[in-house]
């Protein structure tokens, strides 16, 4: 959490009013309660950036002592924001960071991370890790539901623990102490933005580090990068005091189709 207790806010600076508002809408949908302030277009509604509009947005985003991460679309949006910060009072400027990130993807990553109560540095880092969001399809080994049983059996044998057979498994232990389980994606669009965000938000309260197919389950964009589709088998691993609970919850969420089936 930030010092003020509020979540980190976002300011989206764009050459286009519609683009800033649209991106704010998309990011906000995945992170209800996070303040996302659009600042796009010139004062007369044309394309370009407005010093006054950005200045107003930053004031609004940081009022009450809060912090903010700025996403900017093209170069001069960064320049305008830097100029605003140069002329702003030092207390405000200290609490603002401009992310070097793609506009939409960075906004989404930052919003979801802020929603989890992260501090300014973590929200900034999430935005900046958003570059190169979508990996090439087909780099993940495909697996169908039929192969789940075999995979589950292997995991059980390797872990030396008994586990329920069937589509999803949970509770197996890896040699390093990680909890391991598999789950089958049920929902038609697979692990797209909405379920990825749900996973991140759902896992946030658990005292555990969780991975899905080896990627960090606390990162919306890492999850989406998997390109996992319906019927894919996901391998879930977790470490930490609540690893087992987190994995069990995740299995049921995945198997439940995230409420989409």
């Amino acid at each position, binding site marked *: 959490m930030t010092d003020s207790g509020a979540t980190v806010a976002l300011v989206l600076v764009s050459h286009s009013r519609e683009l800033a508002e649209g991106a704010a809408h998309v990011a906000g949908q995945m992170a209800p309660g996070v303040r996302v302030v659009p600042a796009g277009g*010139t004062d007369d509604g*044309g*394309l*370009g*950036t*407005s*010093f*006054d509009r950005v200045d107003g947005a930053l004031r609004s985003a940081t009022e009450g002592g809060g912090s903010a991460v700025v996403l900017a679309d*093209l*170069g*001069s949006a960064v*320049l*305008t924001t*830097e*100029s605003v910060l*140069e*002329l702003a009072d030092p207390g405000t400027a200290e609490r603002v960071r401009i992310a070097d990130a793609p506009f939409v993807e960075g906004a989404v990553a930052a919003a979801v991370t802020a929603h989890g109560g992260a501090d300014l540095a973590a929200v900034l880092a999430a935005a900046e890790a958003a570059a190169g969001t979508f990996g090439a399809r087909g780099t993940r080994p495909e697996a169908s539901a039929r192969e789940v049983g075999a995979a589950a059996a292997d995991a059980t044998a390797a872990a030396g623990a008994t586990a329920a057979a069937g589509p999803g498994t949970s509770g197996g232990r890896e040699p390093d102490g990680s909890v391991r389980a598999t789950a089958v994606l049920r929902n038609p669009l697979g692990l797209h933005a909405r379920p990825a965000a749900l996973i991140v938000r759902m896992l946030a309260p658990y005292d555990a580090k969780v991975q899905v197919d080896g990627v960090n389950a606390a990162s919306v964009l890492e999850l989406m990068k998997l390109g996992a589709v319906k019927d894919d088998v996901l391998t879930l691993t977790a470490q930490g005091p609540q690893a087992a609970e987190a994995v069990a919850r995740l299995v049921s969420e995945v198997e439940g189709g995230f409420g989409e089936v």
Partner: protein
Amino acid sequence: MSLDAAWAVDWVRRSEAAVVEHRDELVELDRQIGDGDHGENMARGFRAVVARLDALDTPPATVGDVMRLVATTLMSTVGGAAGPLYGTAFLRAAKAGAELDADGVVALLEAALEGVVTRGKASVGEKTMVDAWAPAVAAAVAAADHGAPPSEVLAAAARGAHDGAAATVPMVATKGRASYLGERSAGHLDPGARSSELILAAAAGAAAAADGPTAG
């Protein structure tokens, strides 16, 4: 003869006249390798500066005061990169004192260049306004080293900016919106370099006028 606030005000008025007169040219240059709004932005910005000057109860007392008025006005009225870039340039130039001798003129130009480079992070050869300002500063330094008076220093700076802007034509842009065009940006004069040339010519013109008909 040192340059004072009256010279700075005249510089601003001449700059406004120049960017308004060359508005279409700047739009066209920017249309070819940018988003086509540079001429409109500069005209709007300098018109706003002149309007603020005209609205003052008392004329500005120092060169620095004029620079600051230009800076803050341009920052909030010029869209695109030119607003923050020129705004920062004039903001740094506002450190100039009440009146400028030859060294003072050099310091003002160096500060302006430092502002552009700090804000835009471009270096020479990237096809930007830096390619007009850097040679202008170099020429100003050389002139001052040879004992030239302020008006001569500015005339040298204006020539440096002119040559520098012309030199941008074959360059491939590696900064700014034009950099998205890559090789296609070659063969065009950079609009920011052109407007810089106009503004520095205005500074020299104002200084020459201040010298008056008795100047040698």
